[in-house]
């Protein structure tokens, strides 16, 4: 008996070890927030996980107890109540327990949903994002530069992303900085993120848009303000503007390496925000950052 038992121990250790130990590694992007939005989302994730964890444990313990105690074995000494089918107090207690657990999650949910909807600055950096087939285009309307599949942003300054698509529904997701928002054709949707320390972060399209959608990733370079201005002037100085011809190439369904443009035609991004959009943000675009 001991031999067969032991045979199970090793695989079991490897299995659970393999599942649980990586929990702290930096691959767990959601657990490594690099800015206030991701941090606030993580806090809610942790809080809700603890609350539902309590519910899970309560039910598991009750379940295990009942299963052990009330088995139909010949010498079971547990009581047998063949008519017990009501207990008002118990039913009310269960109801209250479930309700309290939910209220604990619900209050911060409501609070954070509203907080995250308001960008905490009247002068954010604006980046217009367009999802193209299998690539991301980033345009800086004030700096008049554009990049593909990567972008720079300054730390400690909220960034307003205005998302649209010239492709099927895509979802813009840079988990270290915060949760996602869809990029849709014929619509412009807002999302604000902020980096509280510098670093290079991965982002991707989280919604299926075709055979190469899984290769549709981008890199976020969060850098100090000075480095950012330096980078902007570098790109501006490169004298490599986006033309009508480059735009047409970009519209083709391809995967491209990172690209940058010292200028771009303004008609590449919808000029008039549509319904649904920046209204909720109390944001007024200004020319002077």
């Amino acid at each position: 008996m001991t031999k067969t038992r032991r045979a199970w121990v090793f695989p079991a250790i490897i299995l659970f070890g393999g599942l649980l130990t990586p929990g702290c590694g930096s691959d767990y992007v959601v657990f490594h927030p690099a800015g206030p939005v991701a941090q606030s989302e993580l806090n809610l994730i942790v809080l809700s996980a603890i609350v539902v964890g309590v519910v899970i444990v309560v039910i598991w313990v009750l379940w295990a107890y009942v299963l052990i105690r009330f088995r139909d074995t010949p010498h079971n000494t547990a009581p047998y109540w063949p008519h017990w089918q009501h207990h008002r107090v118990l039913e009310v207690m269960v109801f209250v327990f479930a309700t309290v657990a939910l209220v604990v999650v619900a209050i911060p949910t409501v609070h954070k949903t509203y907080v995250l909807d308001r960008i905490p600055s009247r002068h954010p950096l604006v980046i217009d994002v367009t999802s193209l087939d299998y690539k991301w285009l980033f345009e800086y309307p004030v700096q008049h530069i554009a990049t593909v599949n990567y972008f720079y942003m300054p730390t400690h300054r909220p960034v307003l992303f205005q998302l649209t698509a010239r492709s099927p529904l895509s979802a813009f997701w840079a988990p270290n900085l915060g949760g996602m928002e869809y990029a849709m054709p014929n619509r412009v949707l807002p999302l604000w993120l902020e980096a509280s320390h510098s670093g290079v972060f991965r982002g991707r399209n989280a919604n299926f848009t075709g055979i190469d959608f899984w290769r549709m990733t981008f890199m976020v370079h969060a850098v100090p303000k000075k480095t950012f201005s330096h980078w902007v002037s570098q790109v501006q100085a490169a004298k490599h503007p986006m033309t009508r011809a480059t735009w047409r190439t970009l519209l083709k369904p391809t995967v491209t390496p990172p690209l940058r443009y010292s200028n771009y035609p303004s008609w590449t991004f919808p000029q008039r925000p549509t319904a649904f959009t920046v209204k909720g943000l109390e944001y007024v675009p200004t020319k002077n950052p």
Partner: protein
Amino acid sequence: MPIQRWTLHLLRLLFPPQVLLPDIVAIDIGLTVAVIVIGVYLTRTRRWGWLWHEWITTVDHKKIGIMYLIAALIMLFRGGVDALMIRSQLIAPNAHFMGAQQYDEVFTTHGTVMIFFMAMPMVFALFNATVPLMIGARDVAFPRLNAISFWLFAFGAILLNMSFSIGGSPSAGWMSYPPYSELLYNPGVGENYFLLSLQVAGIGTIATGINFLVTILRMRAPGMSLSKIPVFVWSALITSSLVLFAFPPLTVALGLTMLDRVFGASFFTIAHQGMPMMYVNLFWIFGHPEVYILVMPAFGVFSEVVPTFSRKPLFGYEAMVGSLLAISFLGYGTWVHHFFEMGAGPSVNVFFGLSTMLIAIPTGVKMFNWIFTMWGGRIRLTVPMLWQLAFIPTFVVGGATGIMLAAVPGDYQYHNSYFLIAHFHNVILGGTVFGMLSGMYYWWPKMFGWKLNQRQGTWAFALFVSGFWLTFMPQYFLGFEGMTRRMATYPAGLGWTTLNLWSTVGAFVMGAGFLVMVYNILWSRRYRDWDVTGDPWDGRTLEWSLPSPAPEYNFARIPMVQSRDEWWAMKQEGRTDEVKISATTVHPIHMPRNSAMPIMLAFAFFVGAIGLIFAWFWMAILGGLGVIAALAYGSFADYSEVEIDAKHVLQTEAQLGRVES
């Protein structure tokens, strides 16, 4: 030659490159051989007539239930093979077991098959097999409509499943969001197959909803008030009403997409300011109630299984029924939680987040009530009970992660990630599939007259459940690592490798569990352990008062119901002789007559659907005329009933030992 050019064009349409892959051609050949073998077997054993009279034209709810069950198991196999192909592709980074196009087709059919052609028929299999027996009825309210529903489902399933050998599979995901599902991105007929197969099957589903609604409301035995019907019947009633209100939005969404694709409209296109968002709303107005359509019957099954195998009445009947009603009502107000990231304002998101959380209260009440039902009972570990016992700890995890997903800002990080994938497999497998399998093992003796081997059933259960945990628990963590759904493959170096490997191993363990289950069924059929009592589990509800399987008229004598667990009460009070008849009390019984009209009608729909899929409008019109002709024939045909005379009833019952001397 124009004829030659036309033929060439047709061949290209029917066999585009994506259906000429070697593995697909191999499957085509295998299927053809299988069809020929079955045909030869039926001819040699002279069973064509038997097949036609006993099964194809039947309107008997018990046989329709069996056909639904067989179809659901076949579709579970198909969807399961798709799942194993997906997991094989993801076993290691940069694996190219299939190309991206084929991968997209496989995950699309996996989702579509599992939801619409596995879970739905499994639910309807149990409804058909048991609901009339549990309420003391001789059939459903509209028996021929019931057969029509089945055949519409069957031809819908055939449509979707033939797409991969003729014309090409759909590849836009089971939700088929436009504009990706529109012609611009999805030329070819694959997407049309998706739209039309769901449309055809969906008509049948709505009809089933109406049928069971009327059956349960109008055909209960005398004395069986709504407060006395078993909770499974309550779940059938509520599910049917959900079907009735949830499927029409799907019909509209699919219909408008079809108009876009086949007739050049622009409801959801990018061009002409189409509104893809509108499809997303319509789809989830259907899609979220659909989740409850799938899980409520499982709740119903457990509410029968737990009392039976704990030898106790269900704890808190009113609370159980009340929470089913609450869930069904709240279920209509949660659909936006599938797209918190599509730009609705914070107030809208908060409303739908909170309404979603509210659903956890009645669900939590149910979990506790099942536990309290076992409390103070005597638990027998039979196979149906094992599935229930696995359900509680599994489903509570799925429900819990559901609350996490409902916390709106949290969802910004989970949406479309593997966290979401783990969550909905956790509730659909841990809820619906565990529940349906529990129900299948529970009512199998009643449906077929023989029992399934307990030891093999336990093995199948153990493999399937452990495989399930191994597959889906790692996926929660993959979500936190930023892995998103529907990726055809992934690069190394993101930390996803180990967890994906475990997940794939788990999937194959689950596959092994399914194979053991099939072996379990075949073995038990070979060495039949007949259920001669009609009550193999010491049951509580009316279906166990009947012989297994029930005679075609179910009840020779309609019972007068006095209490909730009527059969249990009869046994306790020594009233079991009430089910017997005598030469003086026997009456002739009127039963619905078999009809070929249902399969003809469904076939006409099938022809019409093919016409629309390939945009051969002459064929679509032909199919439409066929539908009208079948309906007209059905309306004017006489003799829709047969009479089973009293002598025959008396003979049958005497053979079953149910005649008073």
